[in-house]
C-alpha cells in the first residue's frame, strides 16, 4: 500500500477517529479537540500536497481487492482526478476551518471526544466517497456519511426531539441510498462491472441513448442523489437536522454531505447524458427545490432554519446547472457555496453562542455593534449568497449557471433561477436585519458575550470571509477538461445581456427587501397577520406542508401497522395444531366414563365390526 499523499489524506481522519473513539474518556476536552482539529489539518496539508503533485489526468491507487467472486470484483481503489481533488480540498480545507471554529463553539460541552470522533469519521467517509474508484466503495462512503450525520445531529441525545431528528435524517437518506443501491444492481447486471471508468466507457456502447435501461439507471442514481442532497421529494430531513450543533450544520449541511449528490451526478455524467429526459428532470427538480426553499426561507423565525432552506435552494441551483448540462458550473457553484454558506453558519454559530443558545430572530436584534466579527461574516456571506455583482464569489458561480441555462435555451428554468435570485436577496436581507438591527428582543441579546479567542473564533470567519469574495471565485481551477461540452461554451451572444439581467435581479431583491423591512415594517406585519397573508406565511413556514404530508402518508400508517402487528398473528396459525389436539383430548376423555359395561359394549362393537368386515370382505370366509 504505497503511502501517497492521497492515501495519507484520508488516513489521518481515520486515525483521529480511532484514537478518539478508543480513548474512552481518558482524553480531556483540550486534548481531544487538538487531535480532532489536527487530524483534519494534516489531511488538508496532504490534500494540498496531492494537489501540487497532481499532473492532470487520473491517477489510480488500488489498495486491495475488496471482494472477488466470479466477475464481481470491486476493489478498494482510489481514483484521483481534478474533480476529486477539488472536492477533497473543499472537504479538508473548509472542514479544517469548521473543526477549528468548533473548538471554540464546543467549549464547555460534555463529550467533546465523541463529537470530534464523529466529525473525523465524517471527513474520512466523505473522502472515501469522493476518492472511490468504484461505485461500491462510493456507496461505502455514502452510507458512512449518513451514519455520521445521524451521530452528529443526535449529538445532544438527551433531548428526545434531537434523537428523533437524527433518526428521521438517517431513515430519509437511507431511502435515497436504497434507490442508489438498486441503481448499482442494475448497472452491475447490465454492464457487468462497478468500476466508474469502465461503466462510463461501456454504457454508451451497450445502451442506446434514451433507452429504457439508461433512463432507469439514471433515475435510480438520481433518487440516491436526491436523498443525500435533500432535494424536493426527500428534503424533509434537512430543516430538522438543525438540531445538531452549528459546526455540524456548517460541515455537513452546507459544505460537504449535501453536495455529495451533486458530486455523484457530476461523476456519472456519462450515464445522465445517455438519458436526456432524466437530465431535464434533474433540472426541473433543481428549479422546484430552489423556489420551494426560497419561499420557505422567507417565513422562518429560527436563523439556522433560514440557512438550512437557503442551502437547499442553493443546491437546487447546482441541480439546475447539472440538469442543463453545465457540470463545471455546478461544481464551481458547489465550491463557492461551501465557502459562503460555511461562513454564514459559523457566524450564526458565533451569534448563538454569544447569546446563550438563542436562535429565534424575534429574540435577537441590535447585535451589529456588539458582535462585529459575526456581523462582518454575515454581511460578506450574505453578499455572496445574494451574488452581489463583481464583489462576491457567488456572483461569478451563479451567473455562470444562469448563463449556461440561457445558452441551453431552457427559458423556463432561467426564469425560475432569476426569481430565486430575487427571493434569495429578500430572505438574506430579512435575516441580517432581523438578527443584527432593530431592538434586541431578549436580555440575552442585550448583553451578548462576543467570542474573543483569535485563533479559534476570528481566524476561521476571516479566512472564509476572504474566500467568499471574488478571491474564492478566482481560486477555482476550472475542470473544463473533465466534463463534456457545456452548452454555454459554444454560444457567445447574449452573455452580457444575461449578466445585466442577473445583476438587476440581485439588486432588485436587495432594494425590495431593504424598502420593505426598513420602511414598511408595520405594513408587512399586518399583512402576515390577516387571513390570506397569514395562511400563506404559515404554509411557507411549514415548507409547503411536505413534512405533514409524509407524516400522514407514510409514518402514521407505519406506526399503526407496527402496533397492529405487535400481536404476532401469523404465529397464531402455529397454535392451531395445539388447539386441535386439545379438542380431541376433550372429546375422548368423555368416553372414559368408568363404567365397565360401557367398555364391554365398545369391545363387542369392535369385534362385530371386525367380524362383519371379514364376512363382507370379497375373499372372506375360510
Amino acid at each position, binding site marked *: 500500500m504505497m503511502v501517497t499523499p492521497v492515501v495519507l489524506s484520508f488516513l489521518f481522519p481515520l486515525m483521529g477517529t480511532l484514537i478518539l473513539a478508543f480513548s474512552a474518556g481518558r482524553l480531556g476536552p483540550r486534548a481531544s479537540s487538538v487531535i480532532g482539529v489536527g487530524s483534519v489539518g494534516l489531511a488538508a496539508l496532504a490534500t494540498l500536497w496531492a494537489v501540487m503533485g497532481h499532473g492532470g489526468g487520473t491517477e489510480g491507487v488500488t489498495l486491495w481487492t475488496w471482494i472477488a467472486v466470479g466477475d464481481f470484483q470491486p476493489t478498494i481503489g482510489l481514483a484521483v482526478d481534478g474533480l476529486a481533488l477539488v472536492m477533497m480540498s473543499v472537504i479538508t480545507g473548509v472542514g479544517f476551518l469548521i473543526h477549528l471554529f468548533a473548538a471554540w463553539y464546543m467549549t464547555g460541552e460534555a463529550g467533546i471526544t465523541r463529537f470530534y470522533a464523529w466529525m473525523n469519521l465524517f471527513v474520512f467517509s466523505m473522502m472515501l466517497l469522493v476518492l472511490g474508484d468504484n461505485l461500491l466503495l462510493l456507496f461505502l462512503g455514502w452510507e458512512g456519511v449518513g451514519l455520521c450525520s445521524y451521530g452528529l445531529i443526535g449529538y445532544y441525545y438527551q433531548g428526545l426531539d434531537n434523537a428523533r431528528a437524527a433518526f428521521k435524517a438517517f431513515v430519509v437518506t437511507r431511502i435515497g441510498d436504497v434507490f442508489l443501491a438498486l441503481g448499482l444492481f442494475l448497472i452491475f447486471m447490465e454492464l457487468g462491472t462497478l468500476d466508474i471508468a469502465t461503466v462510463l466507457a461501456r454504457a454508451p456502447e451497450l445502451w442506446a441513448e434514451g433507452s429504457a435501461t439508461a433512463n432507469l439507471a439514471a433515475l435510480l442514481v438520481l433518487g440516491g442523489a436526491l436523498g443525500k442532497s435533500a432535494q424536493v421529494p426527500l428534503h424533509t430531513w434537512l430543516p430538522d437536522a438543525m438540531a445538531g450543533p452549528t459546526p455540524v450544520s456548517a460541515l455537513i449541511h452546507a459544505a460537504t454531505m449535501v453536495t455529495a449528490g451533486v458530486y455523484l451526478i457530476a461523476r456519472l455524467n456519462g450515464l445522465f447524458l445517455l438519458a436526456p429526459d432524466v437530465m431535464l428532470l434533474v433540472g426541473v427538480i433543481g428549479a422546484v427545490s430552489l423556489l420551494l426553499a426560497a419561499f420557505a426561507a422567507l417565513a422562518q423565525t429560527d436563523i439556522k432554519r433560514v440557512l438550512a432552506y437557503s442551502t437547499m435552494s442553493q443546491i437546487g441551483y447546482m441541480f439546475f446547472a447539472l440538469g442543463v448540462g453545465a457540470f463545471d458550473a455546478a461544481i464551481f457553484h458547489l465550491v463557492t457555496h461551501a465557502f459562503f454558506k460555511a461562513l454564514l453558519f459559523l457566524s450564526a454559530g458565533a451569534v448563538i453562542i454569544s447569546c446563550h443558545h438563542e436562535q429565534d430572530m424575534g429574540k435577537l436584534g441590535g447585535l451589529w455593534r456588539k458582535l462585529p466579527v459575526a456581523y462582518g461574516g454575515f454581511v460578506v456571506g450574505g453578499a455572496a449568497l445574494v451574488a452581489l455583482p463583481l464583489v462576491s464569489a457567488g456572483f461569478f458561480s451563479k451567473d455562470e449557471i444562469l448563463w449556461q441555462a440561457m445558452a441551453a435555451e431552457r427559458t423556463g428554468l432561467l426564469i425560475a433561477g432569476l426569481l430565486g435570485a430575487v427571493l434569495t436577496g429578500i430572505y438574506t436581507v430579512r435575516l441580517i436585519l432581523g438578527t443584527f438591527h432593530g431592538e434586541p428582543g431578549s436580555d440575552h441579546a442585550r448583553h451578548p458575550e462576543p467570542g474573543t479567542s483569535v485563533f479559534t473564533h476570528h481566524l476561521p470567519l476571516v479566512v472564509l470571509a476572504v474566500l467568499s469574495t471574488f478571491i474564492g471565485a478566482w481560486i477555482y481551477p476550472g475542470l473544463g477538461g473533465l466534463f463534456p461540452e457545456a452548452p454555454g461554451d459554444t454560444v457567445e451572444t447574449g452573455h452580457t445581456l444575461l449578466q445585466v439581467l442577473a445583476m438587476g435581479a440581485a439588486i432588485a431583491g436587495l432594494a425590495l427587501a431593504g424598502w420593505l423591512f426598513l420602511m414598511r415594517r408595520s405594513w408587512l406585519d399586518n399583512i402576515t397577520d390577516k387571513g390570506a397573508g397569514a395562511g400563506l406565511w404559515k404554509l411557507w413556514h411549514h415548507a409547503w406542508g411536505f413534512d405533514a404530508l409524509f407524516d400522514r402518508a407514510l409514518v402514521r400508517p407505519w406506526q399503526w401497522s407496527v402496533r397492529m402487528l405487535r400481536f404476532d398473528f401469523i404465529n397464531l396459525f402455529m397454535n392451531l395444531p395445539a388447539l386441535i389436539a386439545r379438542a380431541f383430548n376433550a372429546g375422548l376423555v368423555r368416553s372414559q366414563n368408568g363404567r365397565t359395561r360401557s367398555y364391554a359394549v365398545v369391545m*363387542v*362393537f369392535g369385534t*362385530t365390526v371386525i*367380524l362383519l368386515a371379514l*364376512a363382507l370382505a370379497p375373499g*372372506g370366509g*375360510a
Partner: protein
Amino acid sequence: MEIAFYLSGLVAVLATVGVITGTSPVHAVVYLIVSLIAVAMVFFALGAPFAGALEIIVYAGAIMVLFVFVVMMLNLRPDAERELTWTHPRYWLGPSLLALVLLGALLALLRQGGVSEVIDGELLTARAVGLTLFGPWLMVVELAAILLLAALVTASHVGRRSNPLNRKMSGNRNRGGTP
C-alpha cells in the same frame, strides 16, 4: 339321536335366556345349571361322552355350586325395583341389537365357510382323549394345573374377609368389618 341333540339344544337356549332375563339371582343360577346340563346332553348326543361327563362334573357340579355358595353367602334378594329401572328399552335395545348383529355375522361366516362334515355318531372314547392329553399336550396340561393354582391363590387372597388391604381401605367406610 338327532332329536336328542336338537331338543337339548333348544332347552339350553331357553335356559340361557332365562339366566339373562332373570331378576332373582337364585332362579338365574338354577337356570344356568339347567342350561349346562342341557349342553352336556348335547355332548352325549354328539358322541363325546367324556366331554359330557366332564361338563356335568366340573362345570355344573363344581363351578355352579360355587356360584350357589356365593349367592347364599351374600343372601342376595331379588332387588326388583333397581332391575325394573333398566328394563326401559333405551337400556337394553342397543346392546341386544349389537348381539344380534354379532350373531348374524357369525352365521354369515359359517354359511360361507363351506364346512361339510357330518357327525355320524361314532363315539370318541375317553381313552383316545386321555392318550392325546398326556401325549403331545402334556405341557399344556401342566400349564392348566399352574393356572388353577394361580386362581386358587388369588381367590383365597382377594376373597379373604379380613384381608389387610380391605381393612385399611374400608376402615373409614363400614366400621366393624362384615359379620
